[in-house]
């Protein structure tokens, strides 16, 4: 059983959410943002049509601990390329990066898609249909691990 974060500590953690690129699918991102806020995390909501650099600028200014990138419209791979490098460039070397939404295009198996995003430097990628309690659970485990100096619960 891995360690998990005490819910009272969630308020000390700031997460930036938004839908990357020219993507206007806002519903899932909004549901996710509300669920995270309800769980007690501090959320900075960027909304739809958010260029990659805006995630990073918002994260710098708010001293965010993590960025939650949504991509639904099928161009996530293109939009997310270089995202970790942008973070490193801005001094956010260790910021936790999650990506989710509808990352699969065509019939590519999820494992292949997931690996592509992990290779890009995302700490976790989530398949279509991910429900919000799963996301909260992953965050709790990863931030508990981070408190002990690890990068994520799985590393």
């Amino acid at each position, binding site marked *: 059983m891995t360690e998990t974060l005490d819910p009272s500590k969630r308020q000390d953690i*700031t997460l930036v959410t938004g839908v990357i690129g*020219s*993507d*206007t699918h806002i519903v899932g991102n909004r549901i996710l943002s509300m669920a995270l806020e309800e769980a007690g995390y*501090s959320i*900075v909501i960027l*909304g*739809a*049509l958010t260029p990659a650099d805006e995630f990073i*600028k*918002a994260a*710098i*200014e*708010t*001293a*965010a601990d993590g960025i939650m990138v949504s991509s639904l*419209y*099928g*161009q996530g791979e293109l939009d997310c390329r270089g995202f970790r490098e942008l973070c490193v460039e801005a001094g956010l070397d260790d910021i936790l990066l999650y990506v989710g939404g509808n990352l699969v295009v065509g019939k590519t198996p999820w494992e292949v898609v997931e690996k592509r995003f992990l290779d890009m430097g995302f700490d976790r990628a989530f398949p279509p249909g991910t429900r919000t309690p799963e996301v909260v659970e992953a965050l709790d485990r990863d931030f508990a691990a981070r408190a002990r100096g690890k990068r994520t619960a799985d590393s």
Partner: protein
Amino acid sequence: MSGDASAALLIDFGSTYTKLRAIDLERAEIIGSGQGPSTVTTDITVGMEAALADLEGRIGGLPDFTYRLATSSAAGGLRMVTVGLVKELTAEAARVAALGAGARLIGTYAYRLTASDIAGIEGHSPDIILLAGGTDGGNDEVIRHNARVLAECGITCPVVVAGNREATDGISARLDSAGKTAVPTENVMPEFNVLNIEPARAAIRRIFIDRIVHAKGIDRAAEMFDEILMPTPEAVMEGARLLADGTGGQNGLGPLLVVDIGGATTDVHSVAAGEPTLEGAIQRGLPEPYVKRTVEGDLGMRHNALSIVEAAGLDTLASEAGLTRDRFRENLAMISGDVERLPETDEERAVDRALARAATLIAVRRHSGRTETVYTVMGPAVAQHGKDLSGVGAVIGTGGALVHGIDPAGILAKACADPNDPESLRPRAPRLYLDREYLLYACGLLGTVEPKAALTLGLAHMHPVAEEEHGNGRSSVAG
């Protein structure tokens, strides 16, 4: 003149002139105007006395003034440096706050101040530094660093601290213990993308009244007025706000835009919410203040005539003025070196008109929001950056080029939307007005004590202008 009717004296200590407006408060009318040289750098009382004598000569005796209020843009104006974290976020919020306080920005910085940044700031010796950075609970490391290097450097001016509230106390103590004056106030961006510029503006105004006025020697004339209330650009802004919003049940003009074309800069003020009017447009970027001021430091009729030409193109301007390139260039050389020059010949007037039209177009285009079409797989989507001013119903022109030049309507028409430039959200079909008596600053000042009289006065003296025959007003000048 008898001393019965209550009257107000409104004073502008400008960079070249000290200007007076005497107002009859009951009738809300101008009694008279006076002007003297601006002698702030030597002894301000000399110019003030000359201006009063001029006024007295024109109206035959001075009334007892109930109010004697002043603004100042003398001795370089309110020279400020702003510092923030991310260029587009807290650094921009700090810039907007300083401009809204009527400042002249002499340096804007983002991220960590470097040794050469500090040297630059020391070299400029600003009147005030506005230090921001981090949302509340956000980044505090960079603002702490910047406060430390400012504390250690040679500047002596007050520092308004308007960043992450968690760092404010520590920073203020650090600056104070280094012998600087820290003025702590609320964060200019307490939450991500939330602007909160009023507290910083108020702090800047307070410092201006308490300290800068003295530092610039304006209080030597203290016997001759009650109070210097604000920098002149802020008074113009307050005048614009009053004229737009009205007061105490008396309607104003509604959302409006002011274009102030000066010798060195072109200022644009908008009083409008600026929300998207285009269906489906998604607002992006930092929200903008309801009363917004921008200053274009590269667009001025004399000091910066050459940079207007750089921005608009010599060919365009020359043909607009009906001159050859060489002839236009000769005129330019003449006026750029002679900053007080008023146009004397038809040719000079045509050159001024062309410059003013280009300055108006470029300044209002930079001030206004724009739409950007984002092409998605499903078709185009529209993102809006900045304020949508297409519904603004009134454009007011002020400044020498409009008042002393020809064709004010043709110049102001350049502030309007252009079908060839549909992405620029400029006013679509506004009424055009001219502030011929230079009253906006006076309305802003008087509005602080007698808002109703100030509004009546302003409404009566914004003169509607119509396009003249030769003014091919709305045709396009590239810019």
